[in-house]
């Protein structure tokens, strides 16, 4: 009953690999930029705080699909050369997800007491050293469940890159479907695959939530 899926399995899974790769870039870049955004959001310097806050507010209030289109169509005009859909999508995701990860980091930073930061400074650590060794690691651990949840959403959203012609799984499924005309089984397969991956992710998130509740180490 899954004949159309099996006949095109390598092609479809190849598309899925693209989703995974895109998600990997989005998460690595989004977490790094997100940590910086989070630091900007708690900054006492107005010239840091206001631009970062404007960036976050702007991107959190427009749909991701618009960002994907915008980067794909506008970036070539700005840079003067056409962009590979994968790179374009990766840039869109990093820029977009960084605002969400940034707000999670901000919440994490706000759980850290003022005196803990003072203690770090009082040993002579600089702002940068304090951010790298104290603030970001603590916020990361404390916010791990939320970060994983947002990562799952990011993974699901990678399928949106099909709108700029990226050969990810949903895009390839529509191509296979137009030849084989087996919509139900093809899209069911895609749904199952996404579900399995994301369900595992949400279990991992739950695990860390329980763990931190029990241990209350942080």
């Amino acid at each position, binding site marked *: 009953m899954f004949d159309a899926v099996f006949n095109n399995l390598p092609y479809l899974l190849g598309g899925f690999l693209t989703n995974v790769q895109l998600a990997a870039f989005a998460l690595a870049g989004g977490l790094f930029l997100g940590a910086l955004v989070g630091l900007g959001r708690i900054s006492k310097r107005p010239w840091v705080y206001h631009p970062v806050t404007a960036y976050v507010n702007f991107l959190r209030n427009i749909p991701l699909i618009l960002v994907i289109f915008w980067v794909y169509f506008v970036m070539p005009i700005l840079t003067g050369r056409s962009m590979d859909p994968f790179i374009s999508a990766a840039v869109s995701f990093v820029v977009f997800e960084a605002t969400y990860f940034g707000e999670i980091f901000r919440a994490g930073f706000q759980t850290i007491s003022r005196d803990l930061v003072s203690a770090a400074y009082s040993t002579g650590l600089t702002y940068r050293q304090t951010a790298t*060794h104290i603030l970001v690691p603590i916020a990361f651990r404390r916010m791990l469940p939320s970060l994983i949840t947002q990562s799952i959403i990011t993974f699901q959203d990678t399928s949106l890159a099909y709108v700029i012609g990226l050969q990810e799984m949903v895009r390839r499924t529509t191509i296979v479907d137009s030849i084989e005309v087996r919509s139900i089984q093809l899209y069911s397969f895609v749904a199952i695959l996404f579900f399995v991956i994301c369900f595992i992710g949400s279990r991992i998130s739950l695990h860390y939530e329980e763990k931190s509740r029990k241990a209350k180490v942080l």
Partner: protein
Amino acid sequence: MIEIKNVSKWFGDFQVLVDIDEVVERGQKVVICGPSGSGKSTLLRCINGLEPYQKGEIVVDGVSLSDPTTNLYKLREKLGMVFQRFELYPHMTVMRNITLAPMKVRKKSRPEAEKKAMELLERVGIPDKASAFPANLSGGQQQRVAIARALAMEPACMMFDEPTSALDPEMIQEVLEVMIGLAKDGMTMLVVTHEMGFAREVADEIIFMDAGRIVERGSGDEFFKNPKSQRTKDFLGQILK
């Protein structure tokens, strides 16, 4: 070592420090006491450059904090600080807590930093806790680690902000003993505390603060035997009860 000249500080309209004058000589031990909200902690934070002040001047080891070119990070290396709630880094072992600043700020090698950290842990009496995480230590042990962490940067002066007020009674003594040991070794100390036994034993000078002002100051004995102001008498009456 530390000169505070006519320092005032406001939080908005509220004046937290009013014309504070104080000199702490090298090797001197000064205890600051007073009711909560009297500006004691704020004063320590100002000396360490953690809070700005609006009037007057603070000079640490010849370097003025009012000077905009002063590198506060460098200055803080000279001043160790211990906080009421320990403030150990919760995601690091005791060893890492102590070695972080020597390795990152002083660029010491790991073996060198760890050797020094072990010596300090011996000194505060918990060498066996090097690989433990802060959450698995008692309050008294955590505070002793915090003292070791501050000492690891070899500060010229140690500042304590109510180091025993978050501790269970049976743990206060173990922390005070470490502090008395430091005092006997000649460390310059500025201690905000209500432990009057400690004050009597080590303090060269006791300062009483209320509502942002230094109300009274005196040597240990003088302060307890003949408090001059009524405010000091009331306060001592309450805490020595």
